[in-house]
């Protein structure tokens, strides 16, 4: 919804929130349901109201628990039966400067005392997090602290022993250090957010006196949006691709008219410098696992000429898909999406021509468009919009572009083989199929949250839940990593089965779409059966729960030779197979228990 996309009009959101909410809830889209506990150090009514809108807009339907005013500490440390029975999926601790109780009182306080107070202040929060972690297996989002607007000493406040800004900055560093050392705690950077909104806009003492709001009502949508971005990122709802126009978006000028010598990129001119900076900025997203693509109205030859300009930061090989032709851009985006096995809702499209953006919005409303008016503004929009908000980084993220490039090579080679099986054999595939090793937990969690198409039950797991099943003796957990001669695809398949005497119920079976039709699913089944037999299992039961996106696997168990037990009207089905006489099905992938390279990972 346009009203809730960045840049949004905060005043409009506060004023029209009931209408926006109604519109979202009646738009017919399917959303995942999440229970969000908000533990506040101040009143959080408007935060919850705005957060609900943004989450709905991101495809998450929240249900809220709200602590009493400033009861975050009590709720966390001593517990609350209502919070317990609410069983949150995610906890947000909304504390601010107003909750810091140990600020140095007078300039005569000694450095040692300040440090003691700082540690005590930190301990209080650590207690909150650790108590919550003990009680709930779920992600916790914690604000850091904004700087005060008012100060006695000017700049001295940020570096003197008893300066308040100095105290807060130290506390913020302690929060970050701690968050890095544990898993499941995420810092929400209101220090940045308050700066970007401006401290004069952020702070509003009267809102505190009247409503016990720790910030101005006018910036609450900014806070809620930033928070919603983290939550949707945790649940795997980030965008995945930046699809870029070329002329006047990646360089200045028009390659078809100005030629390679005429376009502006590189240090010679101010405009050239700005595009160099923009390319570097975009390249930075690639480094975090965002895929880059080109969508340009150009003769392909000219587009490539532009991409070969020696001053480019982005090279042709940085893009996983290049569409340079005169077809409508929405059609090109749809094609790129198909090639990459991604939905158009994974795309952010950037173009300097507002008309192109409008056409794409009209034809593919799920594509997020960014109208590029200047490098500075485009970078700001990408920064604040949170399309690619990072909450965790897996090894796969760091190598994603290479993996897609290897995919393109595979596709090219496939064409030259007589039979498909010959092609599969030629890939020299080997799979490591093992239980959930600690290094894989993050990637497995990520997969359970973002795989939609090849996903039999679409059950979502938090990192802590994955941790828990991996250690449970009642579960068989397998993850599969597929390697071939073009490269390592990383962890691409996950199966979780629950043991119930001699029956194994498959609660989750998913596979990344980038390894479809490689017989990896057969290799997974072979291994699953092997483990199941060891555990004394006689029957494996498979479940298919229909979702708007997983029709691809509706007959999956049937294709593996399972027998259909029941089929519901809504499309769900239950299957079983007896494994006593099971014969291995995979013929093209060599299975190894241990990895041959990257052993240390």
């Amino acid at each position, binding site marked *: 919804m346009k009203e809730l996309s960045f840049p949004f009009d905060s005043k409009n959101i506060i*004023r029209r929130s009931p209408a926006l909410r109604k519109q979202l809830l009646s738009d017919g889209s399917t959303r995942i349901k999440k229970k969000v506990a908000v533990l506040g150090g101040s009143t959080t009514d408007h935060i919850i109201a705005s957060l609900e809108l943004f989450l709905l807009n991101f495809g998450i339907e929240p249900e809220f628990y709200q602590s009493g005013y400033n009861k975050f500490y009590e709720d966390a440390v001593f517990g609350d039966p209502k919070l317990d029975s609410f069983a949150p999926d995610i906890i947000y601790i909304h504390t601010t400067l107003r909750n810091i109780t140990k600020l140095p009182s007078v300039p005569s306080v000694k450095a040692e005392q300040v440090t003691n107070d700082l540690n005590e202040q930190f301990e209080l929060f650590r207690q909150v997090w650790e108590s919550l972690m003990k009680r709930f297996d779920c992600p916790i989002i914690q604000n850091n602290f904004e700087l005060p607007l008012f100060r006695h000493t000017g700049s001295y406040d940020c570096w003197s022993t008893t300066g308040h800004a100095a105290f807060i900055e130290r506390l913020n560093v302690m929060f970050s250090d701690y968050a890095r050392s544990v898993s499941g705690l995420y810092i929400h950077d209101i220090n940045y957010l308050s700066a970007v909104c401006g401290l004069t806009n952020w702070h509003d003492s009267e809102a505190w006196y009247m409503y016990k709001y720790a910030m101005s*009502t006018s910036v609450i949508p900014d806070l809620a949006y930033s928070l919603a971005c983290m939550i949707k990122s945790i649940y795997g709802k980030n965008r995945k691709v930046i699809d870029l126009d070329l002329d006047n978006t990646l360089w200045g000028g028009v390659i078809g008219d100005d030629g390679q010598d005429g376009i502006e990129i590189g240090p010679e001119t101010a405009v050239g410098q700005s595009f160099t900076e923009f390319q570097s900025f975009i390249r930075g997203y690639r480094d975090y696992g965002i895929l880059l693509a080109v969508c340009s109205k150009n003769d392909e030859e000219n587009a490539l000429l532009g991409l070969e300009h020696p001053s480019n930061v982005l090279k042709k090989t940085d893009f996983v898909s290049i569409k340079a032709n005169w077809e409508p851009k929405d059609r090109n985006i749809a094609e790129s999406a198909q090639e990459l096995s991604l939905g158009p809702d994974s795309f952010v499209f950037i173009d300097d021509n507002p008309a192109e953006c409008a056409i794409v919005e009209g034809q593919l409303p799920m594509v997020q468009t960014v109208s590029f008016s200047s490098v500075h503004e485009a970078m700001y929009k990408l920064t604040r919009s949170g399309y690619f908000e990072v909450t965790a980084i897996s090894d796969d993220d760091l190598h994603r572009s290479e993996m897609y490039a290897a995919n393109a090579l595979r596709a090219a080679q496939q064409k030259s083989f007589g039979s498909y099986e010959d092609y599969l054999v030629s890939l020299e595939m080997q799979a490591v199929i093992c239980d959930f090793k600690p290094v894989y937990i993050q990637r497995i969690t990520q997969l359970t949250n973002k795989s939609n198409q090849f996903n039999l039950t679409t059950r979502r797991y938090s990192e802590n839940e994955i941790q828990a099943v991996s250690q449970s003796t009642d579960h068989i957990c397998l993850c599969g990593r597929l390697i071939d001669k073009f490269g390592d695809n990383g962890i691409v398949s996950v199966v979780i089965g629950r043991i119930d005497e001699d029956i194994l119920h498959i609660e989750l079976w998913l596979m990344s779409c980038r390894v479809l039709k490689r017989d990896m699913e057969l290799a997974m089944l072979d291994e699953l059966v092997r483990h199941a037999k060891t555990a004394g299992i006689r029957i494996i039961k498979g479940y298919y729960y229909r979702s708007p996106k997983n029709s691809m696997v509706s007959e999956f168990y049937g294709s593996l030779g399972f027998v259909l037990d029941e089929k519901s009207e809504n499309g769900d089905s239950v299957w079983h197979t007896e494994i006593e006489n099971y014969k291995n099905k995979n013929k093209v992938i060599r299975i190894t228990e241990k990895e041959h390279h990257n052993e240390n990972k």
Partner: protein
Amino acid sequence: MKTNEIIPRLNEVFRDVFGDSSISVTEKTTADDIEDWDSLAHISLVAAVEAEFGLRFKMREVSAMKNVGDMINLIAERGR
């Protein structure tokens, strides 16, 4: 600003904030007359009225507001 200029604009604000297009406020309207007029809505209302008329209510004014008429008087004095 005159009361008859204020009321239609103010009425739109009320309709938006309460999500109810049947609302019709008068100077005598109070929180008791509108079902969803809770503390959350009150804060939204104050923020939305301030934004609509480009003024800022003082704390004492907010706490002393007893009906829509009080609000209109303040807008008449300082609103745009």
